[in-house]
């Protein structure tokens, strides 16, 4: 080998024999083995996804001409954008931000409708808004504006404790208001208006965007005027419209406007823009040109109809979606408080020496073990302890929520502990050195700094909980239920449980079409949650949050 080098480079007078090539054979082999391994993983996942989406969207009924148009108008621009995004990091980031906002906004709107309008009802919402949420937000804003007010923390705490009590008493006594203003009006004032004001504040803070009052006004006008449009669409009530303006139109409008204001980020808008325009053109021209497109199972009718075991064409996932959203919202509340609490204790309060340290070590080790316990075992625990012993009922919303909370609690605790441990010790020392108590340090320094990491971990864990099936089977969630749950103690359907039921149906249209559409619904929810988690993490790593 040294002779090789010598002949190649004549200018080198004398090469030390010790400077020749060193064998890298084993390293090269290892490198290619790892490459093939990751390729196999990605490829098999891709095949699975393509297969499910193909069935769910009914792609085989489309004509070749439609495919030509599809590739020309949608796939080609999109692939071009993806290739460009590889060299342009900002473009990919903007696309992710847009995707997370749009998808998160739509699904957040669904969740909002389910929680506020279907489950709670407008009277309950108004009671708690007036007694708890409104006052707490008002006190918080007052504290932000008046820096000297040191009582706001206690004020919010008091509102959080006393507000729900007052709110519960208020339910039923404000029927006059509810019937007078009407549900859409109440949502307009309590949801759409605050969202519009929030966007206005954000716009005001952003120097490139001009006056926030116009943004607030525009969103409020959209809430009021859009009612006419909403009336024309079946399945969209005026209340639903208000909630979607708040959860979808407000954040999406803000994100689009902010990206439009910054010229460096325009390239990122090209991809999503091309996708929307391409799909729009395709929808417009396929009728006149006589192109037969796909006949998807996964459509608006699928999302808004109750499930069926006999008629594939009318089967939907509305009731199971409501059940899953109800359960997952409860799981989020339980795990966030319990998980963050436990993680804070283990990281900040439990010492490392003495008896308390030993107990804390034992707890830490066991939490790591619990994260690996099979989910079916948690289902058994839920059945024995919650459903039977405590008596929350077989297959009820509360039983499902408690069981799934236990299932993901270890994951939430572990990720929250990692986020808390990642707060630099120098920050804690700075706070203690200023004469802050431990609580003040946790409250002012540790929690704000670790919150993005905690949120990321919790969202990923919730994504796992929403797709879990085995525990639901164990606690007796019904295989099929047409009605959405109305309270904590009603039996509920759930999305993964419904998918499992359809898989057993002998009718091939159920086995391929409806089942695939149900799976796609689950996947879309999961992908959205994960992209939001990634978005939060990216912003956190850059220090934006």
């Amino acid at each position, binding site marked *: 080998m040294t002779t090789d080098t010598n002949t190649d480079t004549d200018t080198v007078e004398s090469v030390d024999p010790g400077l020749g090539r060193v064998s890298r054979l084993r390293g090269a082999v290892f490198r290619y083995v790892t490459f093939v391994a990751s390729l196999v993983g990605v490829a098999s996942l891709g095949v699975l996804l393509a297969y499910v989406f193909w069935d769910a969207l009914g792609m085989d009924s489309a004509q070749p001409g439609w495919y030509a148009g599809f590739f020309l108008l949608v796939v080609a621009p999109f692939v071009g954008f993806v290739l460009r995004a590889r060299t342009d990091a900002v473009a990919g980031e903007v696309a992710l931000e847009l995707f997370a906002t749009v998808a998160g906004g739509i699904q957040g709107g669904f969740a909002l409708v389910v929680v506020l309008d279907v489950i709670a009802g407008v009277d309950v919402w108004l009671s708690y808004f007036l007694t708890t949420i409104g006052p707490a937000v008002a006190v918080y804003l007052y504290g932000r504006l008046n820096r000297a007010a040191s009582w706001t923390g206690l004020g919010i705490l008091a509102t959080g404790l006393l507000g729900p009590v007052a709110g519960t008493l208020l339910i039923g006594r404000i029927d006059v208001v509810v019937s007078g203003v009407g549900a859409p009006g109440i949502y307009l004032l309590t949801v759409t208006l605050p969202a519009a004001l929030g966007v206005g504040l954000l716009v005001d803070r952003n120097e490139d965007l001009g006056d926030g009052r116009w943004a607030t006004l525009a969103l409020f006008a959209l809430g009021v005027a859009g009612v006419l449009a909403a009336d024309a669409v079946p399945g969209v009530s005026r209340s639903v419209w208000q909630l979607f303006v708040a959860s979808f139109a407000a954040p999406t409008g803000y994100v689009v406007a902010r990206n439009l204001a910054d010229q460096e980020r325009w390239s990122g808008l090209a991809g999503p823009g091309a996708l929307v325009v391409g799909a729009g053109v395709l929808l417009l021209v396929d009728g006149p040109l006589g192109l037969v497109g796909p006949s998807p199972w996964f459509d608006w009718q699928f999302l808004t109809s109750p499930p069926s075991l006999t008629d594939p064409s009318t089967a939907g996932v509305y009731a199971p979606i409501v059940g899953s959203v109800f359960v997952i919202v409860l799981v989020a509340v339980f795990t966030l408080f319990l998980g963050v609490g436990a993680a804070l204790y283990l990281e900040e309060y439990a010492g490392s020496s003495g008896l308390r340290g030993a107990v804390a070590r034992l707890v830490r080790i066991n939490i790591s073990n619990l994260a690996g316990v099979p989910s079916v075992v948690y289902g058994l625990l839920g059945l024995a302890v919650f459903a039977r012993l405590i008596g929350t009922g077989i297959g009820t919303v509360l039983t499902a929520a408690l069981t799934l909370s236990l299932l993901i609690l270890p994951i939430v605790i572990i990720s929250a502990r990692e986020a808390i441990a990642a707060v*630099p010790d*120098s*920050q804690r*020392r700075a*706070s*203690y050195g*200023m004469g*802050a*108590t431990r609580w003040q340090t946790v409250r*002012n320094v540790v929690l704000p700094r670790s919150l993005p990491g905690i949120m990321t971990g919790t969202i990923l864990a919730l994504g796992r909980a929403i797709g879990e099936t085995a525990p639901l089977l164990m606690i007796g969630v019904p295989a099929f239920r047409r009605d959405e749950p109305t309270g904590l103690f009603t039996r509920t359907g759930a999305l993964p449980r419904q998918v499992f039921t359809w898989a057993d149906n002998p009718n091939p249209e159920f086995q391929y079409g409806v089942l695939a559409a149900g799976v796609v619904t689950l996947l879309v929810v999961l992908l959205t949650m994960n992209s939001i988690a990634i978005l939060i993490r990216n912003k956190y790593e850059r220090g934006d949050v």
Partner: protein
Amino acid sequence: MAKENTEVDAERETRTERTRAGDPTDTAPDQLISTDPGREGVAEQDDEPSGATETVIEAHGLDVYYGETRALDDVTIEIPSNRVTAMIGPSGCGKSTFLRCINRMNDLIDVARVEGDLLFDGVDVYADDVDPVALRRHVGMVFQHPNPFPKSIYDNVAYGLRVQGDTDDLDGRVEQALRRAALWEEVSDRLDDSALDLSGGQQQRLCIARAIAVDPAVILMDEPASALDPIATSKIEDLIDELAESYTVVIVTHNMQQAARISDRTAVFLTGGELVEVGPTREIFEDPEEDRVEDYITGKFG
């Protein structure tokens, strides 16, 4: 109020140029509200630190152990008020440990154990009825690496006042602290910007402003300039000079020239946590009593 402060600030700017020795008219025009009875009446400055001030911190036979390891060995020292006292010595000699004893930051280390007496204003800081949190409100600390919170500049300076629930005239006191830390001119128009956008030297001055905002009696500094460039370092040194007019400053440094430049008294720690010699800085550097100290200062070891 703002106008008056600007004048005071301008005066300080010019004063910083002069050396402290040649400034007999210096009578601290910007005296802060005093919470510490021990500092009353110590307004006039005197370059010769020869008993003109009171002792604010006293250690008698102080030992510190980290588990089995002895970090401080029978340290006895008196630290006078309104002076800069420097702690020098090789790495691992216990000078930072001693500093952390004064505001009980060693309490945060599980294995640390302190024996002996350490008095702050005549009170044993390790007595049962002394709350370390209350103690730290009188003894501020500045760390080796600038560690501002990821909050706005304003919120950083206001942090100590807020955790103490002392929020009267917050704006004025934040401004005053920033002026005293010679940072006001640079940040007055962007108090709501993140503190992390400041340069390293500005961040360290912000940390000093944060420490003095609560008007402590003593400021402990643990190698405050070792992570900074020479220009930022000289600004910090000027600032320490200023601070000694109103505060007692105890500074740990690796840099012997720095100790010689800024301190009135110097304590030399050597390996094993032993306090070998303490005295007026000039004597320590020009004519130390101990041969080991001379060897260390002249660079024969350490």
